[in-house]
């Protein structure tokens, strides 16, 4: 009996060690996401997507709260958003049929197109007689949020590219930036209400595309 005791003690200890090893390896796998584990990979991208979608939702909510659409807004004539020249899918199926890369590119392009006009908008507060000071401070806040959103989408894009979910060929990015510059001048000439209207529309677009993209890449994840 006395002889048997070390053996008895030895086996649980060994099991515990094994279990610990397994636990550590699991934790490591979870943290590092080895290249073979697609589920792990997708999870993190999904998290990133959720984050950017939530962020875009916040932008949208802020807009609705502080710059609610006016009753006659839709009926105003001769409005033209500076981004309206961009060929964007205007329906669910169109968006779904667009290649992932293009959709990603489109999102980035839209955000990029608003970067300069938004900063211009905030730099020339004195020109905005239509808006109250409170609204202007909110505009600044929203502008920052858009910038953050763009950074976030870039992160997701990088992640997806690194994981091979989308190809690296985000061609035409540079050219679109040039185009963005030209159209942003157009934006600077818009009236405040048009500006807000267009921005609201595009932010809604961005969010919709993000959702579509996410559900295309990870259809099982809360879609």
């Amino acid at each position, binding site marked *: 009996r006395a002889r048997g005791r070390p053996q008895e003690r030895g086996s649980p200890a060994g099991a515990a060690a094994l279990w610990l090893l397994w636990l550590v390896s699991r934790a490591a796998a979870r943290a590092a996401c080895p290249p073979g584990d697609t589920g792990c990979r997708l999870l993190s991208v999904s998290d990133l997507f959720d984050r950017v979608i939530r962020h875009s*939702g916040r932008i*949208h*909510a802020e807009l*609705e709260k502080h710059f609610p*659409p006016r009753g006659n807004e*839709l*009926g105003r004539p001769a*409005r*033209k958003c500076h981004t*309206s020249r961009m060929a*964007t899918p*205007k*329906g*669910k*199926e169109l*968006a*779904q049929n667009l290649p992932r890369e293009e959709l990603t590119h489109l999102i980035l392009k839209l955000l990029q197109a608003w970067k300069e006009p938004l900063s211009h908008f905030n730099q020339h507060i004195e020109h905005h007689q239509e808006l109250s000071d409170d609204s202007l401070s909110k505009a600044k806040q929203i502008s920052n949020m858009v910038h953050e959103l763009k950074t976030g989408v870039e992160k997701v894009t990088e992640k997806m590219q690194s994981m091979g979910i989308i190809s690296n060929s985000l061609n035409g990015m540079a050219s679109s930036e040039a185009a963005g510059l030209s159209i942003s001048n157009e934006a600077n000439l818009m009236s405040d209400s048009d500006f807000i209207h267009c921005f609201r*529309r*595009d932010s*809604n*677009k961005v*969010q*919709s595309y993000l*959702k*579509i*993209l*996410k*559900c*295309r890449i990870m*259809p099982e994840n809360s*879609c």
Partner: protein
Amino acid sequence: MTQKFISSVPIILLLSLTTVCLFGQQFPGKPKITRCRSLEKDTFSCWWKPGPDGGLPTNYTLFYSKDSEETVYECPDYRTSGPNSCYFDKTYTNHRTTYNITVMATNEFGSNSSDPQYVDVTCIVQPDSPVDLSLEMTTSAGVTDLWAKWSPPPLAENSSNWHVYHYELRFKPEEEEKWETVSVGVQTQYKVMNLNAGLKYGVQVRCMLDCGEWSGWSPERQIQIPSGQSPPEKPTIIKCRSPEKETFTCWWKPGSDGGHPTNYTLLYSKEGEEQIYECPDYRTAGPNSCYFDKKHTSFWTIYNITVKATNKMGSNTSDPHYVDVTYIVQPDAPVNVTLELKKPINRKPYLVLTWFPPPLADVRSGWLTLEYELRLKPEEGEEWETIFVGQQTQYKMFSLNPGKKYIVQIHCKPDHHGSWSEWSSEKYIQIPSDYRVKDMIVWIIVGVLSSLICLIMSWTMVLKGYRMIAFILPPVPGPKIKGIDTHLLETGKSEELLSALGCHGFPPTSDCEELLIEYLEVEDSEDQQLQQSHPSKNTRLASKETDSDSGRGSCDSPSLLPEKGRESRTLPSKLPSQDVREVHENNAGSGWETQCVASSEDRALPFNIAGTKSSTWPAANIHPSTFAYHSTVDAPKITLSTTNVNVAAVLVGNEEKHQSQYSTSETLCEENLEKQRAVEKMHSKNDQSTIQVNQNRLSEKSSFLNAKLMDYVEVHKIRQDEDAAVLLKHKENSGKIEKYTIPGTSKEYTKVSTVVDHNILVLMPDSRGQHTPVSQEPAKEMSQNLQQGQVEKNLSYCLPAPSECQREAGGSEYMDPSSFMPSFK
């Protein structure tokens, strides 16, 4: 009187007669037949108007005769057509016959007949109006005609339908006054021609039978004659809605079509495009709607939509309607709402709501995200409680009232733009009532009961007042003398007072047994002096005493008494055999040792008292002796606790020995006494003072004490560890209480006048007993001796406390006051 009455009658008659004659109302006035009418030629009725009735009840009779006959008939039916009428039913109605009708009014003075009325039934018919008039327009070759149609008046049942009515029709434009009447003939329809377009006409018809009367006009019917030349009115776009964010539909409301078939066309243009498109699908969404399928639906694009109504006269276009499909998304209501009541063990049941998004909404694509809101209320409730759920499709509800039936509804909305859907159909769930209802009943009962108890309590409190308070908070007993008339006391007539107490005369005898003494603890001023002189020792004594119970209480308490008795029984058996010191040590810590030895310093008085009582009234000394026994039991403990001779104890012991000779107390006490004696004997350090005291005592036996004055002493009951106090109440100032120093003063309070409240002993100075200085001196000496002998801790006496011995002896609880008479001889 009767004659007078009789004579007055003709006068009255005459008067009334003349009055009647004067006003000419003796006969009824002439009635007049107003009209006779037949509704349908089968029956007819006649009505008349009565003339003045002459102030008397008048009967009216209608007579008629037919032109072919001579016979005169009376009216067959006065009732059917109402008062003052006569109804001729079918059997009495003959066609083509002229009726000669007269009405006769009759009263008691006479009668009067109306003029005769000749009636041809055919020609008195007045039918009811025609019914069911309807107007219809017909347009042929650009000419609008109006057709009016109606039905003959309904006839009473049983009447044959052979009547032929003639009709008349009249019409006029709404705004004009003058009717245009047209004779129609026997047809029941008529085509009105040459009506002015764009006007509203009113039409009526009436009818007549042969040579009868026209009926009344029928109710007016109106019709708008279309102008025929105008284009349709402007249609209105009501709303556009997209149920799933993929397609959308717009509805419009047509205006007036101007009397021509009108076509509706929906036209739209999209933002940024010049081209105008027509609605792709008028059918799918029903009449007056346009359905835009997926192909035709663009988001983030503003549609400019108009509806054009066109007829041959022209067209009219609605106001433009601008639509961004993103904003018009209104999903259908959620479906498959299920309510499930979960009952986890040991926890409250909760409600789980699950539902599904509307089937049209494709939420899995990410294109449309729905948020949900649910509302619920108890079935009988008025207000809904609304809960925003967010994007999840289930919800758990915990805080529902048991036993209620809830109605739940859910609706949904796109996450940013768009509007809420309709509420889903109502779902009901019955939350089962749980134990809490029972619990509540229990609590209610408890509450009611407790409040009842409180009520009773307060009621008794109010009723009993002081008694209840006294029961809860016993009063601090104050010095009181039972049976003493305070008034007498105040006036200072002590003799009267005493006589009132029934203790008059000296020597007091035991017949004053009703004077109850339970405890008596005595203290004098010298005690205080002693205390002052030996404060440390007193305190030491106090510290030594472990019995925290009050001496009185412990003596008093019936529960304690047996115990004490037991102890006192056991003690004696030990004492003789054991070493004194051991005894002392054994008893040093005992709690009850001090119970009756409250004042360690008080020596002189107790001794004196003891001596007196034993010597003077030996016969009455039974109970006092028990006190003494008690004290002797106690005394040695204290005595032995000191290294010095316990003089008092020995003394008392001696005393008791003497007393025991007269006592009838039980052997227990005697045992104590024996023990005491043994202790006494064993003690080699017996002080001479003992002998002295003994001698004193012996000498006192034959002597009486005569108090010079009658004063009162109140012996305060005192806690065992405190000093007994004998308080003197001077009669001069009865309210004032003095500490009476027994050895120092010339007053001796030897007689117990009364016992108050079971614990206050009233002493009075014995006026007869001579107080000799001799008696004082030894006492003083003794006290000094005692002091010198350092027996301050020795509680030399135990006077009044009812000892267990006393109790056990079964003797009277009354004490002979005479036993407390000090004798200092």
